[in-house]
């Protein structure tokens, strides 16, 4: 009995004292040409890594061993070893890579090259270029359908989402969305594709089977001009019930109920909020704020900003170790 009591007490203690799982976040700082490493237990920057010029798109390899960062002005993608936290290699992208997406297995990388209207296909194991796909003017947003069969690329200038068959590498459909589409995100169940339009100020919701826009999310913040609301990054919870949308110079994240497609709440985060990443346990959502040079930490369940962490200049992208 007393032993059980003790065990109970101990486990109770363990529960209350157990720190939240510590994760490592990497943030690309576009202006200072660095990547900040954040520890999610202490919420501090533990290291600043010098990288190439104009780092933007950033993502972990699926095995968690490397962080890939597109350094646009150096026309390449650098690989940071997650153990040594140093740049160890680079990948052959096209000119001015901005954002990229990898397939579910983590074998193939698709890179949007802003300057030459192509998407470069890279074999991640061999770190070799497999070919290019011609897309619309100024390719920008990139994502892959959960089944890996369709690559989505948005074109900033033609305002289209291109649907690309990953096996034939051909464009199979184009869907017109609002002005300057920036980011694309599938629901985890693949039923919907969400695309943010920075200038249009909306998020278009597309039926990926029919290639049709079936709904739109609109934003309104009293006292703010419409032009100040520029949707960019999108984060979707694993149950697909809640979407978080970064609104750029509106300095807010919109929390959207995906069933009604209505904004439930606006959270003031930092200036020019751009991209975001969930911790793997989905307890926290971290956003990059380009003008205030910081990262906001949102408690996902409470839908509340709990912390701000100063990083480098013009933080752009963020990825968290799997």
């Amino acid at each position, binding site marked *: 009995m007393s032993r059980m009591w003790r065990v109970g007490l101990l486990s109770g203690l363990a529960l209350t004292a157990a720190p939240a799982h510590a994760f490592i976040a990497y943030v690309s700082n576009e202006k200072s040409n660095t990547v900040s490493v954040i520890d999610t237990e202490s919420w501090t920057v533990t290291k600043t890594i010098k990288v190439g010029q104009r780092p933007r798109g950033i993502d972990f390899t699926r095995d968690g061993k490397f962080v890939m960062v597109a350094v646009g002005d150096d026309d390449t993608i650098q690989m940071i070893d997650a153990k040594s936290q140093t740049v160890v290699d680079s990948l052959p992208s096209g000119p001015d890579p901005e954002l990229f997406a990898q397939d579910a297995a983590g074998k193939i990388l698709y890179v949007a090259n802003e300057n030459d209207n192509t998407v470069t296909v890279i074999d991640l194991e061999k770190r070799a270029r497999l070919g290019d796909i011609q897309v619309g003017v100024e390719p920008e947003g990139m994502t892959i359908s959960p089944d890996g069969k369709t690559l989505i690329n948005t074109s900033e200038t033609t305002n289209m989402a291109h649907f690309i068959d990953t096996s034939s590498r051909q464009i199979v459909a184009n869907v017109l969305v609002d002005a300057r589409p920036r980011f694309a995100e599938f629901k985890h169940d693949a039923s919907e594709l969400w695309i943010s339009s920075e200038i249009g100020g909306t998020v278009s919701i597309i039926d990926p089977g029919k290639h049709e826009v079936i709904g739109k999310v609109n934003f309104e913040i009293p006292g*703010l001009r419409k032009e*100040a609301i520029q949707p960019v990054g999108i984060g979707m919870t694993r149950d697909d019930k809640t979407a978080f949308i970064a609104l750029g110079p509106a*300095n807010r994240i919109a929390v959207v109920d995906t069933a009604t497609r209505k904004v439930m709440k606006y*959270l*003031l985060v930092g*200036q020019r909020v751009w991209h975001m990443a969930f911790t793997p346990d989905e307890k926290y959502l971290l956003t990059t704020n380009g*003008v*205030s040079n910081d990262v906001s930490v949102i408690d996902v369940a409470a839908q509340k900003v709990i912390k701000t962490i100063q990083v480098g200049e013009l933080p752009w992208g963020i990825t968290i170790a799997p």
Partner: protein
Amino acid sequence: MTVRILAMAVLALALSGTAARAADPRYPNWPCTQAKVPEISLAAVWAGPALDDVQNKWKDDTKVSALVSKLSARKTPLDEAEKSVKEFLAGSGADKAANAKLLFAGLFDTLNAQRSQVMIGLERVSRKQREAADNIREESVQLQALQGATPRDDAKVDALSNELIWKTRIFEDRHKVVRFVCEVPTTIDQRLFALGRLIQQEME
């Protein structure tokens, strides 16, 4: 020869300045690559309770207005300013929410005004620079004429050369200063946002 090169450099500078200014036709004298945003809107920095009842009341509160001056000064480091906000609100007791609103209203008015002053100054300098560029352009044409004249008046050539070198140097220095000052409105935005965000967090 040096003068001619300098004058050409100045011309190039002045021309590139004109091109940059054409970026936003609403503000022909705006010299910065950063877009001109004439005013910070309240909603961009504040998601807290309405401030309609505050108006200018912050000026009547000596403690708040003194703190506003201190926090708005660029010489006060941001982390020190943040510490002062926390201490002030922690010591406000039951008046915390009211004081928080007063303080933010004061910062908003003061920093927005400070920002406008900087922008007006930038546009004034930009107009002066354009005049200076025109002047340098004219004088370098005059100098070329003097250099080619026969008989050549060496004393005059020297005098005008020296004047041009001097004017060009002033022009270039100002050009550098303008580029530096162009960052100031953003620095003020950042300060207002950081302090506003902190005040809102402390109110929760």
